[in-house]
């Protein structure tokens, strides 16, 4: 679809023979074998997963109607093949429409952002808010505003929008400084910088985001189907769960995971074909957070405050306009003013605030446990993945499967297996955290400059030393860009788990509010979660600056 000539000229760099300088002969052999039989690693990984599953099913959950054996599920897949095929078509169509819309919007907005930083400062928070909104809570509104299958498409689009926006923005910004200066020297403006340099530079990062987007869109569509629908994998799952047909539930879940995994793999293949230089980008420019103004702290603080106010203003305006222009009934559609009154005016306001804050504390505890747990695992996994190709081919399919499991459907099952306590919430929030962190950190570790790697290797540095001295520092930015996605994600995961199973925290509070038609409480909950998520996102950015200044790669 695109000619890469302009881009590759800068990147045609060698993939030097350094890979052959492996230390361990055994690993050499394994790698050679894996090179010949690429699928072997994946097979090993999946086999490991299957054995673990069989053991769990037989020894831990036997007779509890929670977990069928792998063999049972294979039978289920075959028995339900017609059901799966018919519903998959529907879900895939919703997901791909959402994928298209969400990504297109994100890419356009990212381009706009890089050309005009003030637009970014004003709109980025709105974009984050769209990601941070607990969709399960705003579902009734989506159902009313968009008819038919559109809510599912919207949810799929919302699930991919921010990750692509962040990925694309980061990519556009990591363009080579020298090339940018060159464009400027020849009198090119910011648009020529975009078309001549930045666009090409953004492709690896864009594709990394698009890979995540594929399973995410599918999940969004399935969540949408839980809102109600005539057909689709989510709808089929509802009946399977109601009839306690665990084999069918798992068959559908696994099938959905496989579809999501296929989407991930396919995007990866396309990326490999279109951006062959992706893994050996030799330099990464300083990320935006560092390259900010050189002026004083007071100036910067004032500027941030100004843009914060503008963002809040725009949000309030858009929200109010949304309710008013669509003539949504005031019984369920509350405006920012309603929420403000609910929280600050009248006798019940202090009580309303106290309840919300109390529930928020529970949710934050749930989310942070999940986040820490997910991030630690993801970082360990990422290091293992970049250190050993064998681990990568074995492990990545497992990670993708984990990411693609439809959480809405699995949450009740996880709760059945592990109870309705903290453990379930932690695991669910952890799963949400794990995947974006893994993918980003792997990408970050790989982005270490070839020069540094060569240097280290010429000194005969061990793999671990290279990892510690070169790769980890160069991965720090990616850990933060992952945190921006994963930390609000963990919060949403916690809300979802609370809503669907644990009966505690802000998630459950919103569920109660929704069934009792307490829409003021519901909208206040949604607002609170969104504000907190956006704040977390901002805090990550603030912490990022000094750390990147110290450890970040130099442009």
């Amino acid at each position: 679809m695109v000619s890469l000539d302009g881009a590759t000229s800068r990147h045609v760099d060698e993939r030097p023979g350094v890979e052959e300088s492996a230390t361990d002969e055994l690993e050499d052999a394994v790698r050679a074998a894996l090179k010949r039989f690429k699928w072997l690693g994946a097979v090993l990984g999946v086999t490991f997963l299957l054995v673990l599953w069989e053991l769990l099913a037989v020894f831990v959950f036997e007779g509890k109607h929670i977990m069928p054996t792998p063999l049972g599920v294979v039978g289920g897949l075959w028995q339900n093949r017609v059901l799966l095929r018919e519903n998959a078509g529907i879900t895939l169509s919703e997901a791909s429409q959402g994928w298209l819309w969400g990504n297109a919007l994100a890419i356009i907005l990212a381009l706009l952002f890089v050309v005009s930083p003030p637009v970014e400062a004003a709109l980025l928070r709105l974009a984050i808010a769209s990601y941070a909104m607990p969709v399960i809570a705003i579902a009734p509104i989506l159902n009313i505003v968009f008819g038919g299958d559109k809510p599912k498409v919207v949810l799929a689009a919302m699930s991919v929008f921010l990750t692509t926006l962040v990925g694309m923005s980061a990519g556009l910004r990591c363009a080579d400084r020298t090339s940018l200066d060159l464009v400027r020297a020849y009198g090119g403006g910011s648009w020529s910088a975009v078309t001549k340099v930045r666009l090409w530079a953004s492709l690896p990062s864009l594709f990394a985001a698009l890979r995540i987007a594929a399973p995410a869109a599918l999940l969004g569509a399935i969540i949408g189907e839980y809102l109600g629908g005539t057909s689709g994998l989510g709808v089929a799952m509802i009946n399977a769960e109601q009839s306690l047909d665990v084999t069918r539930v798992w068959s559908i879940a696994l099938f959905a995971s496989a579809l999501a995994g296929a989407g991930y793999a396919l995007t990866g293949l396309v990326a490999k074909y279109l951006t062959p230089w992706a893994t050996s980008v030799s330099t990464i420019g300083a990320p935006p957070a560092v390259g900010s103004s050189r002026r004083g702290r007071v100036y910067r603080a004032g500027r941030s405050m100004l843009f914060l106010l503008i963002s809040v203003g725009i949000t309030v305006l858009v929200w109010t306009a949304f309710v008013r222009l669509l003539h949504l009934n005031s019984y369920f559609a509350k405006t920012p003013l309603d929420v403000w009154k609910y929280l600050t005016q009248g006798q019940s306001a202090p009580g309303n605030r106290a309840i919300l804050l109390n529930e928020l504390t529970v949710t934050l505890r749930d989310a942070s446990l999940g986040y820490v747990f997910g991030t630690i695992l993801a970082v360990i996994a990422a290091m293992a993945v970049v250190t050993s190709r064998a681990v990568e081919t074995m492990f990545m399919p497992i990670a993708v499967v984990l990411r693609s499991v439809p959480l809405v459907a699995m949450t009740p099952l996880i709760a059945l297996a592990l109870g309705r306590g903290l453990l379930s919430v932690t695991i669910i929030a952890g799963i949400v955290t794990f995947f974006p962190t893994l993918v980003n950190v792997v990408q970050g570790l790989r982005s270490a400059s070839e020069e540094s790697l060569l240097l280290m290797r010429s000194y005969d540095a061990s793999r671990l030393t290279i990892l510690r001295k070169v790769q980890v520092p160069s991965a720090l930015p990616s850990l933060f860009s992952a945190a921006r996605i994963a930390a609000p994600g963990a919060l949403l995961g916690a809300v979802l788990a609370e809503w669907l199973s644990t009966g505690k925290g802000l998630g459950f509070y919103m569920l109660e509010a929704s069934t009792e038609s307490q829409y003021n409480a519901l909208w206040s909950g949604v607002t609170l979660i969104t504000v907190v998520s956006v704040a977390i996102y901002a805090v990550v950015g603030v912490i990022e600056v000094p750390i990147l200044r110290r450890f970040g790669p130099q442009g």
Partner: protein
Amino acid sequence: MPATSTGSSTTVASTAAVPKSLGAAGLQLDWIEDIEFAGSFIAKSNGYYSDNGIDVTLMAGGPTTAVEPIVVSGKALVGITGPDTVSQAINNGAQLTIIGASMQKAPQAIMSLAKTPILNPQGMIKKRIGVQASNLVAFNAFLKINNIAASQVTIVPVQFDPTPLASGTVDGWYSFITNEPFLLAAKGVATHTFLMYDYGYRLYSGVYCVLTPNLQNASKRAQIKALMTGEIIGWEKAFDDPSLAANLTVNVYGKTNGLDIPTQTKELAAYEPLYRTAVTLAHGLMWMDAAEISQNVNTLGLLGIKSATSYFDNSVMQEIYQGQSSLPIPA
């Protein structure tokens, strides 16, 4: 079947007259398309809606569907939901009115093993009863109605899988007469159930709600009447011809939902006594008797939900039946 044979032979005006077109309307369901809506499927496919001049779109729901806002927004003309959630919506400013009740008796039941049956509320004393977290309020209200102190029964928190009853971990199980007994039957476990309704838990289930101002608007009211007429005839047909009901549900409307004929047929049979009660045999399906309405308000009060008889309006049913006890099913 009594409903059709006892009805007098006079024809009801709405079906005899040539129907004029009343336009299109949506019916919001509160679950995915399964046997719970068999009457609507039959009304749609046998033309009972269109015979009355209305083109009805069935809007499938799911676990997170909130029916009331959809009716309030006008996306659906009529919504099927619970008397509890409608009352709470009205309490919070929704202009809604309940115009008919499909299940005259709520399906909540206490299930026990057939070999050690619990026959009535008093039988629960000193027994272990499995109750799901979301049903605790209702169960405690039920104890109160029957003058049983909470300390006289051991409540065991459970999930929705009734296996603990089969394995003897508990003696009784809070369930829905239309669901859990079949889950155990499928595993070869025979059960006994009694309806909570029969012991004072007087509550409707699956009520039809509409926007209150629409009842005063002549053309909207005509649409509502036409839709409900189709709905009533559809349900009469469903109980008279269960195989048609199951077939339409499994092979047409719920085709991609993984349903099966035997289970859906059994469930339909379980719904029948909840729809066809003394009241509806005398006045027609969906009819709301004044005494039952007050009982609903009382029960809702015990559940901590404010309700009022003014939330219910039987006048649409009165106009539809015009003194008859059933509507004739077109040949």
